[in-house]
């Protein structure tokens, strides 16, 4: 018997049921402002996070992808048409203060953060606000270099934020409501969060501020769903003295008085409890090796080495841990017993590099406050080469004195916290630099229980010129390929794209695009406030956008503002 006569009515019935079943989903989608009939494309899966490097629609990580190349694969905006780039929209946040945020974009929803740990969710096509989270800050915040926030992490249907009062907060991505909140460390002792967290394999990774306050630094991993602490790695081991290295990674004499240090060690013991070693920025993640790579900040107190004998491990170092357990795998210390605050803060990048024999190996790149880019072997953290100096260096490593000793670079570097970007096709890594001459003053004082503990002072030499650079370095040879001088020291970040461009902004408000091969300046826009944040990119409805925050900067005192500006090509 044939039942074909039933096909049409059954089909109609089935479609009808589907239609009615879909209605609540559609209505629900409107309530939450964005889910589709076909399921919610806004849920961030680990698969999406893992392949972010080839995702030309979203921008899912602070530094683009787990390797932190900040290389955006979309080429709709390119060297031939970037001259037509113009603002699509401008959103102004309530907070008018230093902006260091990397915008994150998930399926057309943008998450940006402001100083004082606030978060906005915006429609990435129109700039319209969807929600605004205002963190209830505790009365005690102890931080360096501005009340900044460098962005959120995204995973599942959650958005994760570090706060100035040293909390890790998990928000519902659709509503901005708090799902859980954890106190990461005690703000009274100098711990604080200005960095963006990293989401990987159901874990949220975060470091800490505090090298100016005598903390004991760490990287912690929390369960993304519950906030349970999974592991914690101390960046300062109980035996912090190391190998008594007398020279830095570039072979320069550090002028250490090893005998005096050993005597102090014998008298006072290991200084690990208040030795500093904050981790300012996201770790890079290698999912094949199942390891993370991050850099550790300066020892406390910054300028006074007399009371902290030894190499001060693992300050001023590249460190690699097992992702699952947080156990130490390897490290490389750039400066042992640093007394200049020329620490390791710019987030490392994972790319394949030529080793000394010319063979391609997995590598790690780091841009130092010293002014060099360091190129490592990823397997054992060993140094393969370091680049030519990108900024003037003079009198390295003169010891700080009571009256002040002049040395270049000044204590802001070099390369500061600014993100770099790498174009693996060109074999180039791009850094933004500072030339800001300073004198280094030393004056000893005991641990002050959470107050600023520098062991002296840094003083900008007001009578000397300051400026900056955008520098492209061939990481397979260490040679500078091109360098463009800028009017003022640079701080913020830079992004490369498959369109052959690098984008970066300046303290005077200029946001620029350069040809990534040659350094030709192809486009600029005056943003009205310092552009001192790393740019992002994304695609919505077939249009590629470039987006950047223009809010100025506390550290270099660039003009403050509150703009998030998205650019696209003129029609």
């Amino acid at each position, binding site marked *: 018997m044939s039942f074909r006569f039933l096909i049409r009515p059954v089909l109609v019935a089935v479609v009808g049921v589907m239609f009615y079943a879909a209605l609540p989903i559609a209505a629900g989608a409107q309530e939450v402002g964005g889910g589709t009939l076909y399921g919610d494309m806004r849920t961030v899966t680990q698969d999406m996070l893992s392949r972010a490097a080839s995702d030309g629609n979203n921008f899912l990580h602070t530094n683009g992808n787990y390797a932190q190349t900040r290389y955006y694969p979309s080429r709709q905006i390119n060297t031939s048409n970037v001259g037509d780039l113009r603002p699509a929209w401008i959103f102004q946040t309530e907070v008018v*203060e230093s902006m260091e945020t990397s915008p994150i974009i998930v399926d057309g929803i943008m998450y940006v953060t402001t100083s004082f740990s606030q978060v906005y969710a915006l429609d990435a096509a129109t700039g319209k606000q969807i929600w605004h989270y205002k963190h209830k800050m505790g009365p005690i915040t102890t931080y360096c270099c501005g009340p900044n926030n460098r962005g959120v992490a995204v995973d599942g249907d959650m958005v994760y934020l570090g706060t100035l009062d040293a909390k890790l907060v998990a928000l519902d991505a659709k509503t901005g409501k708090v799902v859980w909140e954890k106190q990461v460390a005690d703000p009274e002792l100098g711990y604080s969060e200005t960095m963006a967290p990293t989401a990987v394999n159901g874990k949220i990774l975060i470091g800490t501020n505090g090298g100016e306050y005598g903390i004991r630094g760490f990287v912690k991993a929390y369960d993304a769903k519950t906030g349970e602490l999974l592991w914690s790695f101390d960046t300062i081991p109980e035996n912090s003295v190391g190998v008594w290295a007398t020279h830095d990674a570039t072979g320069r004499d550090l002028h250490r008085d090893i005998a005096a240090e050993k005597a102090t060690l014998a008298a006072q013991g290991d200084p690990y409890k208040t030795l500093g070693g904050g981790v300012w920025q996201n770790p890079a993640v290698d999912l094949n090796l199942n390891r993370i790579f991050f850099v550790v900040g300066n020892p406390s107190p910054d300028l006074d080495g007399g009371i902290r004998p030894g190499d001060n491990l693992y300050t001023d170092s590249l460190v690699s841990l097992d992702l699952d357990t947080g156990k130490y795998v390897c490290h490389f210390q750039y400066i042992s017993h640093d007394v200049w605050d020329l620490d390791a803060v710019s987030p490392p990048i994972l790319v394949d590099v030529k080793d000394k024999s010319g063979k391609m190996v997995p590598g790690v790149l780091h841009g130092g406050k010293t002014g060099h880019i360091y190129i490592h072997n990823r397997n054992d953290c060993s140094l393969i080469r370091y680049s030519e100096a990108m900024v003037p260096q003079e009198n390295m490593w003169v010891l700080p004195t009571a*009256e002040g000793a002049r040395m270049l670079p000044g204590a802001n570097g070099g390369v500061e916290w600014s993100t770099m970007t790498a174009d693996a096709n060109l074999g180039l890594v791009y850094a933004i630099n500072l030339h800001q001459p300073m004198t280094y003053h030393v004056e000893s004082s005991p641990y002050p229980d959470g107050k600023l*503990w*520098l062991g002296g002072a840094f003083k*900008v030499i007001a009578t000397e010129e300051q400026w900056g650079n955008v520098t492209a370095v061939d990481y397979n040879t260490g040679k500078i390929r091109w360098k463009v001088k800028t009017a003022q020291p640079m701080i913020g970040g830079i992004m490369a794209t498959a369109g052959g461009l690098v984008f970066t902004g300046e303290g005077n408000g200029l946001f620029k695009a350069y040809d990534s091969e040659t350094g030709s300046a192809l486009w600029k826009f005056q943003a009205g406030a310092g552009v001192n944040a790393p740019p992002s990119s994304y695609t919505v409805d077939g249009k590629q956008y470039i987006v950047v925050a223009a809010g100025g900067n506390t550290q270099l005192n660039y003009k403050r503002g509150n703009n998030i500006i998205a650019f696209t090509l003129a029609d």
Partner: protein
Amino acid sequence: MNRLLWFSVVGVLLILLSPSTPSANEAPTKTVAVCTSCHGENGLPADSNIPILWGQEFYYLYVQLKDYKAGRRANEVMSDIVANLDKATLRALAQHFSEQPWPSNGYRAPDDEESKALAALGAGECVQCHLGGFEGNSRIPRLAGQQADYLKRTMLEFKNKVRMNSPAIGSLLASYSDDDIAAMAHYLAGL
């Protein structure tokens, strides 16, 4: 402040004050009255060597009161006042004053010092902690619109190792001339 007045105030304090344990949220009215006798009924002290407290950052005020009590900061009047106050009271006082509106000090900085002041403030990167408008945050005090004489005296006390409860500030200010300090004090008071 003349000697007779000083002795009278201290005398009154010693009679009036007794150890107290108020609720954590309230500053005892008696004690606040002691403060306002020097720091001003409406927040503006008559003596320009005495700092404005109204609207100052809560945690900075609390730390200063604790420092007076522990001897980390020394001032004849303040040390006597806090000697008999417990931590809860200190906290409540800090909270109380931080919630008041900052008064206008009516001070105008000399125009011809501005560029010297800005150069000096830039060299010390003061905004890194005190923020762009010198409004302070949490443990970092507001400097903008503070009493000019108090600011100058304070900075000189840091420079000359009289005030010792912020070693980083002491080291930084030691690198400035007295002229630079005067220019900075005037500029900040005029904000």
